[in-house]
């Protein structure tokens, strides 16, 4: 088990509204920086006087000291991070300070994807932990095969990183679908698995990385295995109620796994059966 360390102060260098209820915070260390994060790992983000939540890193910038976390306001702490009030969509103001612990958890295993096609499949806010994967692949042309990015969202206005999605299209196959089309939407409508027919899946040479609501993950993993992709070539990022981040409290236990240590990224070969077990 890891040792609990006190949070290090990080300054909010920028706060970018992504959607009506999600903000990307760029954080810079006030003094000492945490060790370098890997795509898929998370930090415990502490809002002083309010509480602490686990949030995956959504971009790693510069030499690794600058971290971006995309936060959706769904509770007291994430709401404080976003500082959402009616009519107020911008959260912590640049210059504010939060505390960070980490990096915690397993990252995406990108070594196993070397030379292989990389298929990123995200639902909703699940695109945030996968964005560093896309950055990683695009920054290393020739290290991987083809890159596919399939994204599902509730509606067009809930899509994260819309500018980046457009830019990624220059180098990757990017497909987006929404559950609820709004007037003017000209793209796909339906669940994200409906996009699988649009990409060529080379079963023995594709690595699929999934993040989103667990039902979406389960359904997508089943659809991928039905198309011949071996379970060990599917990685998923799972979410449970993480508190300590160091394997002490047991809140994030999923069967034999403590997801703050053994996850959040796990491969499907070892976890698919756990996803179907009720009330572990």
């Amino acid at each position, binding site marked *: 088990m890891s040792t609990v360390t006190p949070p290090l102060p990080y300054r909010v260098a920028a706060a970018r509204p992504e959607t009506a209820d999600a903000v990307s915070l760029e954080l810079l260390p006030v003094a000492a920086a945490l060790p370098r994060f890997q795509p898929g790992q998370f930090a415990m983000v502490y809002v002083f006087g309010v509480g602490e939540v686990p949030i995956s890193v959504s971009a790693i910038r510069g030499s690794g000291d600058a971290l971006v976390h995309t936060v959706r306001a769904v509770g007291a702490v*994430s709401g404080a991070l976003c500082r959402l009030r009616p009519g107020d969509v911008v959260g912590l103001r640049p210059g504010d300070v939060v505390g960070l612990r980490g990096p915690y958890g397993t990252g995406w295993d990108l070594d196993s994807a070397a030379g292989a096609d990389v298929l990123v499949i995200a639902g*909703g806010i699940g695109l945030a932990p996968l964005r560093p994967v896309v950055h990683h692949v695009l920054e290393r042309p020739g290290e991987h095969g083809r890159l596919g990015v399939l994204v599902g969202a509730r509606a067009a206005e809930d899509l994260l990183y819309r500018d980046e999605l457009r830019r990624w299209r220059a180098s990757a196959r990017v497909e987006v679908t929404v559950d609820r089309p709004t007037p003017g*939407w000209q793209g*796909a409508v339906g669940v994200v*698995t409906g996009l699988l027919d649009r990409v060529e899946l080379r079963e023995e040479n594709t690595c699929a990385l999934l993040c*989103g609501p667990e039902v979406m993950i389960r359904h997508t993993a089943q659809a991928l295995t039905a198309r011949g992709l071996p379970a060990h070539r599917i990685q998923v990022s799972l979410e449970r109620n993480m508190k300590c981040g160091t394997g002490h409290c047991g809140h994030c236990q999923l069967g034999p796994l403590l997801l703050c240590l053994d996850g959040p990224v796990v491969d499907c070969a070892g976890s698919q059966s756990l996803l179907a077990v009720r009330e572990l």
Partner: protein
Amino acid sequence: MTGLPALLGGLPETHRDQLLAIARDRSFPGGERLFDEGGAADRFWLIRSGEVALDLYVPGRPPPVVETVGPGQLLGWSWLFPPYRWHLGAQALAPVDAWEFPADQVRAPCTADPELGYRLTLRCAEVIAERLQATRIRLLDLYAPRTAAS
């Protein structure tokens, strides 16, 4: 589209060739209406490129899009079951290239060759089951706000 549509990919080569011999190439410009709810379901398509919106007639408002069908996917299964009437309407969102299959020319060999009929019906049933499951999942509104952080 990449490779054969899933509907054909799951069929033995002889059946696949038999069906493709019936098919003809069709193109539709973006905005063209392919069929309307309640109309005669006398054909179906396998989409090679483009996007088709499936919609439902609602009085007093533009027909809401309930789903789209894109490259590699089957457009239309109402031709398979009596009374052969479309359950939904369809409109090309973008220019569409597709294989078009006249329903009577597919149903006839399916009746004459029960193995072909069984396999094709099974493949269509798989598509219908996938769409039913997808619809159920969308009913859950999974991306709606919940009570945990990202």
